[in-house]
C-alpha cells in the first residue's frame, strides 16, 4: 500500500472540497458561458456529439471558438491546427506558473501532465487564489477535484443545452458575453500577490487591443510575450530598486 487509510481519506476529502468549488461564482459564470457556447456550436453547424467531444478534449473556450471558426470556414486541417495552436501558446506559461505551487517532491509527472489538461483561465485563477491555503501534499487532489469536475459538468451542460437555447434575447446574450471578461478583470486583479503581476495585468489590457489593430495575426503573442517581458523588466530594474531605496532609511533607523 502506498497510502495509509487516513491519508487516503484526507486526499479524498480535499478532492471533495475542490469539487465544492464548482458552486463558486467563477464556476457558475463559466457555466453560463458554456450555455452560450452550445448555442454558438449549433449556429456554426457543429453537431451535439462533436460539441461535447470538443469540450472534453480541448476545454479552453477561446481555442474552441477558433477551432469552430476555422472548421466552419472550411479551412484545411493544417490551417486549423496552426490557428488553434498559436492561440494556445499562452497555456504554457499559465501551466508553468502554477506548477511550483501545485506539485510536491513526490508528485508523479504523469499525474501533473494529466491534470494540466484541465487548466484553462477559470481553473488557473482558482489555483492562484486557493492553492496556498491547502497543505502542499493535498493540492493536487484539491485542484483535480475542482478542475476535472468543472470540465465534466460543462460537457454535460453543452450536451443538454445544445438545441434548447438556440437564441437568447439580445440583451441577455450581451450580458452573458460580458460576464466572463468582467469576472476575469476583477478576480485576476484581486488575486495578484506580486506587483509585477499587476503591472503585467495593465500592460496586457492595453496592448491586447492595441496589437490587435496593428498586428492582428500575432497580437496575443506580442502583447503577452512582449508586454509580459516589459512588465517584468520594469519591475525588476525600476520598481524594485526604488522600493529598496525607500526601505533602506528605515533599516538604518532601526540600527543602534
Amino acid at each position, binding site marked *: 500500500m502506498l497510502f495509509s487509510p487516513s491519508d487516503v481519506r484526507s486526499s479524498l476529502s480535499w478532492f471533495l472540497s475542490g469539487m465544492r468549488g464548482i458552486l463558486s461564482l467563477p464556476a457558475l459564470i463559466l457555466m453560463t458561458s458554456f450555455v452560450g457556447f452550445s448555442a454558438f456550436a449549433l449556429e456554426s453547424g457543429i453537431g451535439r456529439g462533436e460539441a461535447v467531444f470538443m469540450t472534453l478534449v480541448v476545454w479552453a473556450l477561446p481555442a474552441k471558438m477558433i477551432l469552430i471558426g476555422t472548421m466552419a470556414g472550411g479551412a484545411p486541417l493544417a490551417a486549423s491546427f496552426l490557428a488553434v495552436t498559436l492561440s494556445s501558446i499562452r497555456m504554457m506559461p499559465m501551466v508553468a506558473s502554477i506548477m511550483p505551487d501545485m506539485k510536491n517532491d513526490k508528485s508523479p509527472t504523469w499525474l501533473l501532465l494529466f491534470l494540466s489538461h484541465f487548466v484553462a483561465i477559470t481553473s488557473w485563477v482558482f489555483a492562484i487564489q486557493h492553492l496556498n491555503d491547502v497543505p502542499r501534499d493535498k493540492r493536487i487532489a484539491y485542484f483535480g477535484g475542482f478542475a476535472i469536475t468543472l470540465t465534466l459538468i460543462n460537457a454535460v451542460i453543452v450536451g443538454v443545452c445544445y438545441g434548447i437555447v438556440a437564441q437568447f434575447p439580445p440583451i441577455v446574450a450581451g450580458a452573458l458575453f460580458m460576464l*466572463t471578461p468582467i469576472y476575469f478583470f476583477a478576480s*485576476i486583479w484581486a488575486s495578484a500577490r506580486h506587483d509585477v503581476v499587476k503591472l503585467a495585468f495593465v500592460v496586457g489590457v492595453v496592448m491586447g487591443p492595441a496589437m490587435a489593430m496593428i498586428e492582428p495575426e500575432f497580437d496575443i503573442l506580442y502583447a503577452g510575450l512582449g508586454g509580459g517581458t516589459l512588465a517584468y523588466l520594469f519591475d525588476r530594474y525600476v520598481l524594485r530598486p526604488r522600493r529598496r531605496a525607500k526601505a533602506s532609511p528605515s533599516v538604518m533607523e532601526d540600527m543602534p
Partner: protein
Amino acid sequence: MSDAWWWTYLVIIIAGWLATDLWRWLGVIVGNRLDDDSEALQWVRAVATALVMAVTSKLVFFPTGTLAESPLWLRLAALGIGFLVFLLTGQRVIVCVGVSIALLIAGLMVL
C-alpha cells in the same frame, strides 16, 4: 474522405486536442524546473498574466455576437466604473461583476 462521420472527430483531435495540450504538457515540463520565487518564475507569471489579460481585454474591445453592435464607450464605461467601485470597496469580485453588468444592461435598454 472528408464526408465520413469520423473526419470531424479527427480534426478535433489533431487541430483541437493536440494543438492545445502540446502547450499544457510543455508548461508542466518547464514549470517542474521553476523554483518558488525565482526570477524565471516572476517572468513566467508576468507573461502568463499579460497573455490572459490581452485575450480578456480583446473580448471587451472586439466582442462577437449581439454585443458587436453595441457602442464601445458603453462597454468600456460599464467595465471601468464597475472596476473602480470594486477597487474602492475592498476588491470584492461580486461588486465588480454586479455593477458592470447592471450598467451594461441599463445602457443596452436605453440605447
